[in-house]
């Protein structure tokens, strides 16, 4: 289910964690598979909050662990 938003999400995450877009599989775990630590995680959260003018509460951050979950979580918040 490729679409523009999925590509946007991948591009944004790719720039922060310095992993090529083509290697960002939808279910790859940020922490176990992609080497994301808490500092990269907060950078991703801050980037999404800024770009889409949304708020991601701290309690929800540990549950967003891959590209698919970012898309499912943020799509309704950004109103698309």
């Amino acid at each position, binding site marked *: 289910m490729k679409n523009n938003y999925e590509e946007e999400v991948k591009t944004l995450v790719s720039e922060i964690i310095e992993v090529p877009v083509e290697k960002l599989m939808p279910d790859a775990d940020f922490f176990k598979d992609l080497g994301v630590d*808490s500092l990269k995680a907060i*950078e991703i*959260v801050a980037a999404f909050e800024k770009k889409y003018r949304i708020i991601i509460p701290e309690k929800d951050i540990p549950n967003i662990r891959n590209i698919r979950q970012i898309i499912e979580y943020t799509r309704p918040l950004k109103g698309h």
Partner: protein
Amino acid sequence: MRWGREKIETILPHREPFLFIDEVIEIDGTKKVIASKNIKDNEFFFEGHFPGRPIMPGVLIIEAMAQASIILYFICKQEIAKTNPNYYLGKVKAEFLLPVFPGDKLILETNNVKIIDEAAVIDALARVGDRIVAKANFVLGIKKSE
């Protein structure tokens, strides 16, 4: 509300000559902290940077903004901050616009972009009077003391 050195030293683990906050001069809830540091003629770094032509090193302006950022973290996460965690810089994007000289009063403004228990993203700027001398975006890490 203003905080002096006594209060600041309960928040920051830094001490002279590496404490770069003299006073907290404004606190806007959990959004913003403004602090200041008077750059004295006899600051230790002027001796070598540079002999006869003293200029505050840019890395120390970053340090001053980072220390102000820790105070903003303290305001947002007091319970954790009171356990004296270790603060470390994860990432800095900085821009230097003007030099800082002896006698300048450095004003350090920090804005909360995102602060969670273990990390913080903070936008900061340093100014002298109305002139912005440096800007930075920090990613800070916070780890409990062992």
